[in-house]
């Protein structure tokens, strides 16, 4: 561990976010492991890269261009104004020009212009067009996996060009020619086999929940249960599988259980749909996203629940909120009184407001809290009935269960939030330096809040952010205990 640490490049935390000197290729050395045959095949992709991949790649590219308005539009309309160039956390952290949103997109546009535009095929130099060579494919594989699909760039782009769309399309094209990323493909394959990203079979899951129930009993003296596969429960709770096994994620799971217990609402988790996360989205594959999402839909039907509630997970919420209805039809067999699915923060805050549960905010008086808006919640979804509900509801919930809350400084939160540096399917150790670099802007903002406001706790509602920050904090010389979910705060404050 000590040795590994020494090899990482960890920026110094000063509280300031500086725009670095541009160095093309500065982070080219960090690459993902390639997807393996079994996993690729299970996801419906060719097992490996074969002769003639260029022609195949161009064919898939063409198909995407005719079936994805955003991609079609975003290939043409960039004027290279530079508005996005200093907005991406991966550029700010690495200084690599290919990590500027426009630099990343141009890797695809060069190929696009070569094959699909008259200017590119006639005047290659003028239009900066390039055939799809092995060298270019290597760049794609490097830089389209140094993007967390957080969409911060799109917020600043005069045309709303969404790099996530471009990254997803690039990954779809690469998967389609047999060049996949090991981390995401392994995980999706596990979901198909076991129902969750970690690959926990149902017996092991039940064991863990039993242990957790005992822990809660020891701590509170109450018989708080976490039912699994309970048919006829009111609520199907879909949480990221990290909530079952990882810290500090489990603290939030305890929090959810206490809320259901105190409100007297029956709930169940599922061993078939034991995963909120949807890595199909990260690799940009409609079919895989749909299939992962369908497990939730099928399970809600099978267990005859009245509502579906999503736990603390950022991109999972985007997938459930934005895609589920499109991909697998409406949850019209559920109770139409409720928004389906509902975010757990929306649900818990509703109970607090109705007086169904009570909080003692002084229970969290040891904490001076700040909140990190997770990118997919902030810029890809909504909570509640009002616009900006995704900002308002988590903050109101934090304030309901704690007395000391401070915002991170403007420009680093809400719609302008920096990503944690681990989203979009890059939360894997082989690109640790990219993750460290990508976390830098948010870490600087947090450092500033620590120095100026005495902040000692970072509240989150995303499993990836939790994992990323608990990994980053020690590397930056901070205590990982200072990171946790909002329902960890709920768990301490709720009066049982």
């Amino acid at each position, binding site marked *: 561990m000590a040795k590994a640490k020494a090899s990482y490049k960890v920026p110094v935390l000063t509280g300031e976010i500086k*725009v670095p000197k*541009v160095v093309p290729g500065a982070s080219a050395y960090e690459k993902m492991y390639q997807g393996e045959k079994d996993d690729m095949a299970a996801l419906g992709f060719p097992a490996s890269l074969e002769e003639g991949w260029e022609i195949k790649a161009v064919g898939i590219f063409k*198909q995407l261009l*005719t*079936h*994805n*308005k*955003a991609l*079609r*539009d*975003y290939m*043409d*309309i960039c*004027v*290279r*104004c*530079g*508005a996005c*160039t*200093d907005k991406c956390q991966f550029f700010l952290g690495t200084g690599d*020009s290919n990590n500027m949103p*426009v*630099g990343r997109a*141009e890797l695809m546009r060069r190929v696009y212009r070569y094959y699909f535009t008259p*200017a590119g095929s006639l005047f290659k*130099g*003028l*239009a*900066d067009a390039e055939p799809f060579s092995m060298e270019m494919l290597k760049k794609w594989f490097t830089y389209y996996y140094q993007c967390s699909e957080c*969409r911060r760039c*799109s*917020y*600043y782009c*005069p*045309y*709303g*060009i*969404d790099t996530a*769309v471009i990254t*997803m*399309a690039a990954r*779809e094209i690469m998967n389609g020619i047999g060049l996949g990323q090991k981390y995401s493909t392994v995980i999706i394959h596990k979901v198909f086999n076991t129902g969750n990203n970690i690959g926990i079979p149902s017996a092991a899951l039940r064991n863990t929940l039993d242990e957790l129930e005992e822990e809660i009993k020891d701590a509170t003296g109450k018989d708080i249960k976490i039912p699994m596969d309970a048919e006829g429960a009111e609520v199907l709770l879909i949480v990221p599988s990290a909530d079952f096994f990882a810290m500090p994620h489990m603290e939030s799971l305890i929090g959810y259980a206490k809320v259901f217990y105190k409100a007297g609402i029956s709930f169940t988790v599922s061993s078939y749909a034991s995963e909120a996360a949807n890595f199909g989205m990260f690799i*940009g*594959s*409609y*079919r895989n996203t749909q299939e992962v999402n369908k497990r939730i839909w099928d399970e809600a039907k099978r267990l005859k629940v009245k509502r579906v509630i999503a736990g603390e997970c950022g991109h999972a919420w985007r997938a459930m*909120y*934005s*895609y589920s*209805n*499109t991909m697998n*039809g409406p949850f019209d067999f559920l109770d139409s009184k409720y*928004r389906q699915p509902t975010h757990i923060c929306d649900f818990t805050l509703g109970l607090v407001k109705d007086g169904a549960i009570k909080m003692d905010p002084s229970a969290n008086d040891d904490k001076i809290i700040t909140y990190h808006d997770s990118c997919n919640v902030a*810029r890809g*979804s*909504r909570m509640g009935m009002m*616009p900006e509900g*995704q*900002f308002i509801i988590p903050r109101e919930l934090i304030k309901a269960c704690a007395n000391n809350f401070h915002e991170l400084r403007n420009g680093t939160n809400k*719609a302008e939030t920096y990503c944690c540096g681990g989203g979009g399917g890059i939360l894997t150790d082989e690109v640790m330096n990219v993750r460290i670099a990508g976390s830098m802007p948010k870490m600087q903002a947090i450092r500033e809040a620590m120095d100026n406001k005495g902040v000692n706790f970072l509240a989150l509602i995303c499993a990836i952010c939790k994992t990323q920050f608990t990994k980053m904090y020690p590397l930056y010389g901070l205590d990982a205990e200072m990171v946790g979910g909002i329902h960890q705060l709920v768990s301490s404050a709720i009066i049982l």
Partner: protein
Amino acid sequence: MLDLNFVSGIYVFLTYLAGAIFIIGVVLRIIIYAKTPMPVKIPLTPAPLTPMGAAGRVASEVLLFRSLYRANKPTWVAGYIFHISFLLLILLHFARHFVYHHPLPSWYQLFVSIGIVCGIFMFLSLFYLLFRRMIVDRVRIISILSDYLILIILMMIAVTGLSLNFFISAPALTKIDNKLDPFVTGIAVFHPINIPGNPYFIVHYSLILLLVAYIPFSKVMHFVGVFFSPTRYMTDNPQEERYYKPDAEDLSL
């Protein structure tokens, strides 16, 4: 039979050619953008919940460049000045048809002066944008030849336009002025007549034809694309109303 001199013959042909390329190119692009389906909802949230709200959001981008304002103030100032002055100049050139009749209205000098001021602003803002493209590392590294080309074409259009007001004699300018409206009208009613022969004017006019014909192949198409950007025009109501495009299934998100 049309009674045209050699130069006019060429320019009439080029004018129709450039016009056809522009119209066909732009219309084709609109059709392609409009017909391509979007598989899923991707509004960049917080987003308006209603179509009216979303239209307002697109309008704020088109009319005020709101996102660019958030991103980079100096670029916003220069970009905004350029677009406004260019738009005004296009409108003034068309308005000229209704204004330039003898006797000239008393405010004709003012009319011309507004055009000159717009031309100067257009040139200066373009100069800043070119300067920035060459000086700022982050922008220089992403700039490609066509980015410079379009700036240079536009700057040359501004310079040659201004030169008509500053570098040629008053009688020569009046001569162009008198011949211009009949020429443009002739083009519009498909009964072309001779083009004003002044070389300053010919250069200005040639550059404009070049620009018009180049637009459909260039990044200037952002003036169409901005209306088809799903992150901006989509409403945030995926739960309230099912969004489903059967022909966009099974591909990339």
